[in-house]
């Protein structure tokens, strides 16, 4: 039995749920919104009154970021006003699906390039994404998008990550696991990691999948990421540059990553 969210009618459970970010539902919006078609409804945890004021302010700020590479936020609400019911937020592109690990390299290049442009648009608007990975790069009818950084807007206090499986730590910059907040540099690192994953089918930390999460965190902190030695050429150079331990030697922006990827795709 699907849950109830205000006057939305849940039509299906989406398989586009981002692990740890709450379930995503396909929902029929109420007529009062004047929308055609379904929307994606993302469940949030319980949010009390004080936090709700902060969260909705942040969501409204996030909604003002205009980018053709980001979904659009529509509405946010809470099931109960006493802080004990779940919050929810809706966005467009309900049919979007995550970039799967088996996506062809050419498609992955284009999708990561689009995600990099989205990240750049966020950075220029004052937001770091903090969770760029295959699961948050969305494909919808030939269009590639970067899912919105809802955790940044709704987690109080801010979380570093929500790890569903140890391998999700593969693209998390080690600084972030020491507690540093997300930055342009950490998002560029994550773009390099997701690119590596889709070009090589391998992880920068290959032993992560068998680890408990605690061990996985320690592994990412002490191990240098290992770029697959079979990866050669300009794509390998870009991956290595994105993963450079010194942020100052990484590509200067996510836009630079996008432009380099588009050159590679064109070649």
């Amino acid at each position, binding site marked *: 039995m699907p849950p109830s969210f*205000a*006057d939305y009618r849940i039509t299906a459970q989406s398989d586009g749920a981002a692990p740890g970010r709450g379930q995503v539902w396909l929902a029929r919006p*109420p007529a*009062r*919104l004047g929308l055609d078609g379904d929307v994606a409804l993302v469940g949030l945890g*319980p949010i*009390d009154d*004080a*936090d709700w004021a902060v969260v*909705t*302010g942040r*969501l*409204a*700020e*996030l*909604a*003002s*970021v205009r980018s053709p590479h980001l979904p*659009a*936020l*529509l*509405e*946010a*609400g809470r099931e109960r*006003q006493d*802080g004990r019911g779940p919050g929810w*937020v809706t966005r467009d592109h309900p049919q979007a699906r995550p970039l799967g690990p088996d996506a062809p390299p050419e498609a992955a290049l284009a999708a990561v390039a689009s995600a990099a442009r989205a990240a750049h648009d966020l*950075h*220029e*608007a*004052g*937001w*770091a994404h903090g969770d760029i990975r295959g699961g948050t790069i969305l494909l919808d009818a030939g269009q590639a998008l970067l899912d919105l950084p809802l955790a940044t807007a709704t987690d*109080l*206090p*801010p*979380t*570093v990550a*929500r*790890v*569903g499986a140890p391998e999700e730590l593969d693209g998390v910059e080690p*600084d972030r*696991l*020491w*507690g540093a*907040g997300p*930055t*342009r*540099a950490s998002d560029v690192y994550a773009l390099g990691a997701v690119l590596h994953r889709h070009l090589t089918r391998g992880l920068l930390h290959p032993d992560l999948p068998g680890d408990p*999460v*605690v061990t996985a*965190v*320690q592994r990412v*902190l002490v191990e240098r990421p290992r770029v697959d030695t079979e990866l050669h050429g300009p794509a390998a150079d870009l991956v290595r540059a994105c993963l450079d*331990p*010194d942020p*100052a030697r*990484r590509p*200067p*922006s996510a836009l630079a990553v996008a432009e380099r990827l588009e050159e590679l795709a064109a070649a």
Partner: protein
Amino acid sequence: MTTPPSPAQGAPAQDRLEVLLGPGSVIRFGRVAAWAAPTASLALLTFLHQSVRNVGPSARGGQLLADHIAGILAQRDPEPATAFAAVGPADGGWAALLHGPVQLWDGAQWLAPSPAEGWRSCSVTPRPALSVGPAGSAAPRLLAGSPYDLATGLVPGGGFLLVPAGADLGRAAGFASGPTGGGAPDATRVGPPAATGAPPTDGTRVVPSPGPPGVPPSGPAAPGDPLQAGAPLATPPPEAGAPGAVDLRAGAPGEREALPAVNGPVDVAGPLQPLVPGTRCPSGHFNHPAVERCARCRAELGGRPAVNGPRPPLGVLLADDGTIYRVDGDLVVGTRPDTDPAVAAGRADGLCLASPAGTLAPAHLEIRVVEWAVTVTDRGSASGSYLVRQGRRDWDRLTPFRPAPLEPGSHLSLGQRVLTFVSPWPLVG
């Protein structure tokens, strides 16, 4: 002409700091002093307290602190409506940082934050003293031989009067003198400043209450003030079927600025982190003073000088559900930490955990951060809190309300949930 006393003259610090009556907090360490309004969060007060303590011994501690706070405010202003100020020695003079509805009287003129920015970093010259207090307060009386002097610490107070060592109190026309025995004057008087008998001498205007943009000035509301008149809020009424829902489609641009460049600042400290002693590696990364290699780039730190810098995060708490929380300030952990007074007052963040077994208390334990030290305290929960330290196998039950050091690698068990503390620093307890 009075020669302004300079803190760089090498004499032992003999400044006198008189705490003025009124709400707020006054901090002094060495030659650096600060005042914060009672609306300051605990995080801000802790930041000021620790920072003043750390830069207090420096011959240019005022400049260090003003520069540090200005750097933070240039990025983001976490508490734009809160009045606070810091004053201390700089090269050849004194430096001040003024924020929110606050003002500084230097004996000749009132200084206040820029109305546009909401804050101001500036040089000041005590003539021969200076006072700091909330906007709208009057200059205090300067009493020769006053016994009042906060030597060091953090105390309640509505502002302060700083009399530098060697000040010529015979030339204190800017401070109304008065007979002794009246105690410290009241710094919370409401009304226009001055009343000192000494109008500004250099053409500087008398600055009215300079609250930051969008913040109503202090004092009674004027007729028609929407806050006073109970005017309706601009928010549309909730729609039937979705009470309280917020339409996000139009967005609401905030005041965010583009993120710093990839090769931008190397400090990873969050906003309002206090200055603490540590060591910088050749790349500028700030480290715990006891580590031998940089936690970020592994550079050797041997022989590097001790400096003060903004405290980086102290690590993360990894929950058993895979959620990773940053530790860079006080935390209250439980099922409803928002009900805890410290969280409600903004003095701590709430870390909300689900309790499938129903054994986790609303505010089960707290984690406190002081400089580089992290401690954990059980709040007297019925089911208790347990700690297993790295390299040990036994769970030790925490004594309620007694802080215990939280060392890197330690596991915490509370209400059948487990948190693991991961930190790059070797000794955080």
